[in-house]
Each structure stands twice: as structure tokens, then as C-alpha cells.
């Protein structure tokens, strides 16, 4: 598969696997009914501990992305069904990662926020963004 593992990211490896499968479902790369590789097969392919794949699959089962009928394999069910609290927590975690990265790069929180607003306005990497006055930017 197309899963990539980064063992220095601070994100647990099982989360990385689960997140990438979830993203593939959200992007339509994986569809309902598609079969995923077995635990051992995927563990060996990614060169990760099998328990890590078990944990990733269990998490995906809990959020309704996959089903694992006993002895028949692992199949995509559909998009994740997250509780409101879980959705909120994930957004907060993503925000913390973004701000942490900005801080490491030496930007202040308000500079980071401006960059985010620019990205929302679709001007993410335009250097002259300030002068060009799109609706959402530059007050």
C-alpha cells in the first residue's frame, strides 16, 4: 500500500496507519467493500510490529471506517463516524501541531493566524498577498 511511516514525528505509528487509511477513504481512493491486507501481510510490508497494525485496524473499526468479520478479512465500510467531542479534539490537536510548527520556525501566534487566514482565502503562498485585496483578507 501507499502508507508511509515516520517514526520521528511524535505521532504513534498505529495512528499514522489509521489516519492514512482514513484519508484514503475520505479522498475516495478506498471505497466501501474494498479489502485491506491482512495484519501480518501489512505489518511485514511496512516493516512494523503486527500489534501496531492490529491497533490501527481496531481504531478504524471503532470509528466505523472498516469492518473485520471474523476470519474473512478486513473491509472498508465508509467514512469515519466520529462523535462531536472526538471531531473537536482532532481539530484542536491539528491546531496545536500547526502552532507548534509555527513557533519552531520563529513565528508569533498572530503571524501564524494571518497565514491561516491567507490559506483560507486561497492565497496561501502568494508573496504579495497583502496588496491584492481579496474579500477575505487585508482589512
Amino acid at each position, binding site marked *: 500500500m501507499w502508507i508511509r*511511516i515516520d*517514526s*520521528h*514525528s*511524535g*505521532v*504513534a*505509528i*498505529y495512528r499514522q496507519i489509521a489516519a492514512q487509511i482514513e484519508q484514503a477513504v475520505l479522498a475516495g481512493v478506498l471505497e466501501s467493500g474494498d479489502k485491506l491486507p491482512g495484519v*501480518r501481510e501489512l*505489518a*511485514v*510490508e511496512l*516493516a*512494523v*510490529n*503486527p*500489534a*501496531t497494525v492490529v*491497533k490501527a485496524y481496531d481504531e478504524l473499526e471503532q470509528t466505523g471506517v472498516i469492518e473485520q468479520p471474523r476470519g474473512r478479512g478486513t473491509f472498508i465500510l465508509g467514512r469515519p463516524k466520529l462523535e462531536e467531542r472526538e471531531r473537536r479534539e482532532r481539530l484542536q490537536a491539528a491546531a*496545536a*501541531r500547526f*502552532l*507548534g510548527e509555527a*513557533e519552531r520556525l*520563529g513565528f508569533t501566534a498572530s503571524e501564524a493566524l494571518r497565514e491561516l487566514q491567507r490559506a483560507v482565502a486561497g492565497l496561501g503562498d502568494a508573496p504579495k498577498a497583502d496588496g491584492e485585496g481579496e474579500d477575505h483578507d487585508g482589512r
Partner: protein
Amino acid sequence: MTAVSLSNLRKRFGRLTVLDGLDLDVPEGSIYGLLGLNGAGKTTLLRILMGFLHPSGGEGTVLGRPLGKLTAADRARVAYVPDRPTFYENMRVGDLLRFVGALHPRWDANAARRFVDAFELPLERKVGALSTGMRTQLGLALALSTQPELLMLDEPASGLDPVHRRRYLQVLLEASAEPGRTVLLTSQDLGLVEQTCDHFALVHERRIQVAGPITEILESQRRMLVQAPPETGDALRSLPGVRQVRDGSHGFLVTGTALPDEVRQVAGVRAVQAEGLSLEDLFWSYVEASG
């Protein structure tokens, strides 16, 4: 069931105490990574388990047998691959396999053929003419062909290029899934341990500082960027569950089991952002915290 159990283990070389009060439990079936700086005593520990060295104190069992009382039959259930394995350099790979196979009571010739194929080892080449990567792979192939119940690897995959490394880890993981097989390895490569192992222990200052299931331990701890004035440092350091506090550019970097809400209660703290820990972050937080 534990494959290895050690309690209050001590090892002295003359006046130098290498291990002191070390406790370790390696669950059967686990892939267990021993971490530690150079000279932390990891190799000494493996050599004690193999019976090459005698402990100066403490006790333990290997595959249920008391330490130091392993018979030849017990030892045949254990395989050890040193950091730099030595072979009969003048033998061809195929002859070496037949030679070891004839000596070892548990040798599986079919398995040996599979590992040789998996690593694409040239049977006709002399061992002395193999590349570093191939030697490392040959060491693993020989060890696995003896069907060990406990496989001990000292710095596996060190010095391998990415292609050989991946293949090596794949073969190791596949062979580790064999029921009843336990793998105990030492490594400086924290990424390798986080990726392939399910348990780990950090050996530092002569004993185990932290040990257990990797995912559980990593998820019970976090690193927090704490915005607070410089004089807050001492209060942060004395907070329960805080192991390490480092001065950052905009405040402090706090590592430990403390929760963000607990850190927010400290007087002077303006903001806390929590992020996950990699095994590497965890390693440094223990090694640096103890100075």
C-alpha cells in the same frame, strides 16, 4: 509467561559497576527493544543471558531456567547474533550453512533455504567476500534457521543501507510471528525500535529507567510548549509527573505524564500546547533529565 525475567541483577567488572539493581521482564512472544547509550550495559546484559558472563548479584530466568544453569539443550533454544558476527571466512556460504546445520540440533534446512532466498545470499561466494549488509543478513539467517525460542540481536540492521535494512526487518518481523518466539534486541536506532518492537526498556545509569509496552508508555506521556515567564521554571519542575523542563525560545518545553490542565494551574502559565512523544523524545527526556 516471561521469556526472560531478571531481578536486582548486578554486574561488576573489577571496580566498575555496569549494572546495579536491574529488573526486567520480557513477555513471551514479544519483540523487545533494549535502549541505552554506548556503554550502558546492554551487550553485557545479553551476554549474561547467554551464559557467557556471570552476574555479580541478583537472579533471573531464561526460558524458565535459572540464570547460569542453562544446559546445552536449553542453550540450543536461544540464539544470539552479536553486533559484528564472526564466521569462518574461507568457507563458502553454502558450506557454512551445511556446517552449522550439522552441528545444531534444532537446525531447519528448509527454513535456511528460505532465508537465503529472501536475502538473495550467494551460496558460492566465500563468507569473507560478502558485503557488510550480506554478513548481517547471513547472521540473522543462521540464527533463525536454528528455530530459536529466544532470539537475541545486538544492534541488528546497523550499517545497512535502506534497501537491505527494510528486507532485514521484514524477514525479522515475519519470523518473529512464529508462535512462542521472543525477540530481544539492543539498538541505538530509536526509530527502528519504535517501528518493530512492541515493548522496550531504557537502560541508563546501571538500571532500567522505564520499561513496558511502547504505545501505552508513549501515550501516557506528552511534551508541552508552555508559555510562562522565566521565574516559573522551578514551579514547573516541582510539579508531579514532570520529568524534564527545558528553556525554549518562547517559554518552556515540559515533558512527562503531567496533564496540560495540571500545567495550566501553575501560577504564571499563560498557555499550554501539548503534543505527542516519539520514542526519541522520550529517550532524551530520561537521559537528559538525569544529567
